[in-house]
């Protein structure tokens, strides 16, 4: 879904227009797959979001209707969660970018002369993927819990108030989101920075630009494709994430994101139309945000 936004900006070379049965035949499995596993659930989700409670039914029984009031209800009820989701996702994306850019720059540019170091560092970036992110997030919960060594030491040093918590705060959730999405940010950044032609940087410094200006005016614009790809790969899943913000992991009652609300409506409250309406809102909001972002970043001629 997110990459539809990408595809529209990419100038595809015009293929010779020739009606070919073989091409259609080869496309068929893909089309069938999309219809079956993307289009059908999407329509089903849309229909569910408009359902109304069955007149004499039990809790959790709904019948098809055109009850658009569902949308108004969920927005009225959950607007803080919607805003919080995008706020957290934005914060995590910015933090991940700030962390990943220097890392990717080092691997992709500075370490070019030592291919072994380059591959070793890439492996280190990807290595956490070998362990389930649920386990890793749980590990963070333990590391940052009130009784943990880190928090007790900080309290002992009076760097933290005696009654302060870390888990259950927005900081913990944003920290978890940032941590979990750093590889998604680093890898696309690395691929563009690895191809960065250093002669442009030399030309910049030859034209009276100091190191900072060269970075701002040349390195950043030339690595824009990586920045756009990385931020999208981080922002989109982070906005819909429900693990980090969950009470079982790093979140608390005040840090619930859209994902948590959808989960609660679906599994606990059995309010399927509300959950579906929230999902549709999330999807639409992301599409609009991403579309505007890709258009404004102006990476069309660099992609």
């Amino acid at each position, binding site marked *: 879904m997110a990459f539809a936004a990408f595809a529209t900006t990419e100038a595809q070379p015009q293929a010779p227009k020739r009606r070919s049965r073989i091409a259609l035949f080869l496309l068929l499995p893909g089309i069938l797959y999309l219809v079956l596993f993307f289009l059908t659930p999407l329509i089903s989700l849309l229909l569910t979001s408009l359902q109304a409670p069955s007149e004499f039914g039990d809790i959790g029984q709904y019948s098809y209707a055109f009850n658009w009031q569902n949308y108004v209800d969920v927005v009225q009820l959950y607007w803080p969660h919607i805003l919080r989701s995008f706020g957290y996702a934005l914060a995590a994306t910015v933090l991940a970018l700030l962390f990943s850019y220097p890392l990717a720059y080092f691997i992709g540019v500075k370490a070019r002369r030592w291919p072994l170091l380059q591959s070793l560092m890439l492996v280190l970036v990807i290595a956490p993927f070998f362990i389930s992110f649920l386990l890793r997030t749980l590990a963070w919960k333990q590391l940052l819990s009130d009784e943990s060594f880190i928090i007790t030491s900080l309290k002992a040093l009076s760097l933290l108030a005696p009654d302060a918590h870390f888990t259950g705060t927005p900081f913990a959730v944003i920290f978890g989101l940032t941590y979990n999405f750093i590889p998604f940010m680093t890898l696309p950044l690395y691929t563009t920075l690895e191809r960065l*032609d250093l*002669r*442009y940087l*030399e*030309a*910049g*410094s*030859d*034209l*009276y*630009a*100091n190191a900072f*200006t060269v970075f701002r*005016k*040349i390195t950043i*614009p*030339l690595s*824009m494709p990586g920045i756009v790809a990385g931020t999208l790969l981080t922002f989109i899943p982070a906005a819909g994430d429900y693990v980090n913000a969950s009470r079982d992991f790093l979140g608390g009652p005040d840090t619930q994101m859209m994902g948590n609300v959808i989960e609660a409506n679906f599994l606990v409250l059995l309010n399927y139309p509300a959950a579906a309406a929230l999902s549709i809102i999330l999807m639409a909001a992301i599409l609009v945000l991403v579309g505007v972002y890709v258009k404004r970043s102006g990476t069309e*001629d*660099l992609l």
Partner: protein
Amino acid sequence: MAVREFAERGADLELVGIQKRFPGFTAIEELDLVIPAGSFFALLGPSGCGKTTTLRLVAGLEEPTRGRILIGGKDVTDTKSHERPVNTVFQSYALFPHMTVIENVAFGLKRRRIADAMGRAHEALRLVELDHLAQRRPQQLSGGQQQRVALARAIVNRPALLLLDEPLGALDLKLRRQMQLELKSIQEEVGLTFLHVTHDQEEAMTMADTVAVMNKGAIEQMGAPEELYELPRTAFVANFLGQSNLFTGKVVATSGNAITVEAAGASLIVPTARAQRHQGEVTVGVRPEKVAIHTEEPTATADRNVLGPGRVIDVSFSGVSTQYLVDLGVLGTVLVFAQNVGFGPIAHLGSEVWVSWDVTHGFGLDDEPAETGRFPADTSTSSIAAQQREALVTELEER
């Protein structure tokens, strides 16, 4: 401390005892060079001779291992690249792909906060006749147009010193000629000091006031193009700048103003003033176009060197002239360029001929031509590095 004002005129460049080592090989052995202000100076040499490294040292993109660099009398050795009053036209042009042509040209001006950057940029584009393409992206221009944008981007800053790193390398012959003339006229117009690096001897000779021939990290000879061509000092210069016929022999007689060299039985006379060495083994040379070809034995006179008889082993017709390759037996082969003033060739393949040249056209070299194989040695930077590495490895293994 950015350079905020335009250079009034070109500045002179002085390199003092420059040495540049890279891990594994030495790019520049020992280089001393003075380029006077306002001149068009060409650094000519084969790839891997250290000429591009020299340029990068002057631009501040590399640091010398040893030595000082002075621009306009000011020591800039420790000055950062962006603080030097120098601009470069890169071999790859290095036009910023994310900016339009006009933004590229105005880049340097904006960094120096010069008033009316856009106006001046347009002016520079008009100079290279590309103002109508100001809003295009560099990728949308042809190679020749990109080259002109790169030139405009450099000269718009009015640097005291403009460095050109084989900027015409990617152009086709016709465009190249045109750009050579344009470059020369721009240089005369704006009066900047140009340092042009090239491996194309014709380009160096047509454009530059002074040419320095560089080989293996050192300057072999420096001077006006005519001087270098007419009186090469070393075998490398004699063969790199045009072609030469070379004969090595012992000096057998020295008269007041000439020396006689005996090479494989033939005596060749060279004016003393045109010979670098006057005793022992001396290599004598003559340019192919100075050599005349005869189908009958010419009468020997004191002012002509005559060799022969020999046999024509190759004739190639190239329009304005015909090249003959004459086999002289033990003396080796002689190349002769004869102008096509009459109709058809003077001599045919296999015919017996004599060659002669005016004594005053010969020159005596400082060294002997190196024994070269059928193909000249590969002297590119990477192969030098590879060879050095191999030598180092074998040395280590022997211990």
